[in-house]
């Protein structure tokens, strides 16, 4: 019999400018060393599905931390805090990147860490993942799940909180990128996904994109009508394969 176990809990982390924030953290118990993953939540906030996804990654051998990107607007329940953030126009890209960097430090500081760190994000978190992959050193694998507004067709959408279209930073992308998209999604739509892939290809980046028929936005989310079981199962399989390929413990470390 195989004994499976994990620990899932709220932890504190140092984010952008050293601010002390809260995060949900799930990791396998025993064994290891384990790779780490930063999971970036979607626009509605730090909700139950995000925490389920965090535990799912841990179940597959990835110590995963999901920072509450809206912690500065607390205290309050995640939905109330999310409403305040929405009314204020969202969070600044720079702040999110700082929080992701802080979570990466948290992961690498754990005694059971193998030193490899990936980033995954959903919806607006997919866009943040693309940004992080272009902005932060030390990301070993990035997974963008249907991140919208990577391409910004209307310059009016740029503002002090989101000053740059992520696509314009692609040249600086350092990590391998996995992208998952639903062909019925409106943001990003098929054309935008194709244009993003064209830029990655032109710049010689290490990427793989998968597009799903019969799926739209957020098709992993079992609490929404958009959930598509078959596509979601395949997508998760691709996420785990990608992370295990790029975040595996180096052979030299295993032998030590």
């Amino acid at each position, binding site marked *: 019999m195989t004994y499976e176990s994990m620990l899932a809990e709220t932890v504190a982390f140092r984010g952008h400018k050293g601010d002390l924030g809260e995060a949900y953290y799930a990791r396998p118990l025993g064994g290891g060393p384990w790779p780490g993953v930063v999971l970036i939540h*979607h626009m*509605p906030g730090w909700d139950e599905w995000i925490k389920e996804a965090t535990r799912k990654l841990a179940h597959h051998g990835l110590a995963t931390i999901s920072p509450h990107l809206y912690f500065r607007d607390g205290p309050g329940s995640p939905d*109330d805090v999310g409403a305040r953030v929405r009314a204020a126009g969202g969070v600044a890209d720079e702040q999110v990147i700082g929080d992701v960097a802080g979570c990466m430090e948290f992961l690498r500081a754990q005694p059971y860490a193998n030193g490899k760190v990936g980033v995954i994000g959903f919806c607006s978190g997919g866009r943040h993942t693309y940004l992080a992959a272009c902005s932060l050193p030390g990301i070993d694998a990035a997974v963008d799940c249907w991140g919208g507004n990577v391409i910004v067709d209307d310059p009016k959408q740029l503002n002090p909180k989101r000053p740059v279209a992520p696509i314009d930073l692609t040249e600086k992308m350092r990590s391998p990128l996995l992208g998952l998209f639903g062909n019925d999604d409106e*943001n990003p739509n098929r054309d935008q996904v194709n244009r993003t892939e064209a830029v990655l290809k032109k710049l010689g980046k290490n990427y793989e994109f998968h597009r799903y028929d019969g799926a739209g936005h957020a098709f992993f989310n079992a609490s929404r009508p958009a959930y598509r079981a078959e596509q979601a199962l395949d997508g998760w399989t691709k996420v785990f394969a990608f992370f295990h390929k790029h975040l595996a413990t180096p052979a030299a470390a295993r032998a030590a």
Partner: protein
Amino acid sequence: MCSYIVEKAKLLGSAKGPNGWMRIDTANVYYDHPFHAPLDHALGIDFINEAEGGRERVAVELSAQSARELVERILAALASGEVEHGKAAHHAAAAAAE
């Protein structure tokens, strides 16, 4: 999709939340992913008192069809109510004049 587009309506009134009644001065209205409703997109309204910081809210998440029907029912209630209360005001004025 995820957006940060919010329509703000200034208003005068009160709303009842978990801590009882509160004065409200603003409704933040948006159409995006809901937090609780089992929908892909919902019309959300957060009633808040912005003058007092807007930290407490009374929130609803409605399907697009429900929201449109609610708009019609609000307008219908206002129209019929104003007619009835207009009659009452007329009778009161008439009684006072006799």
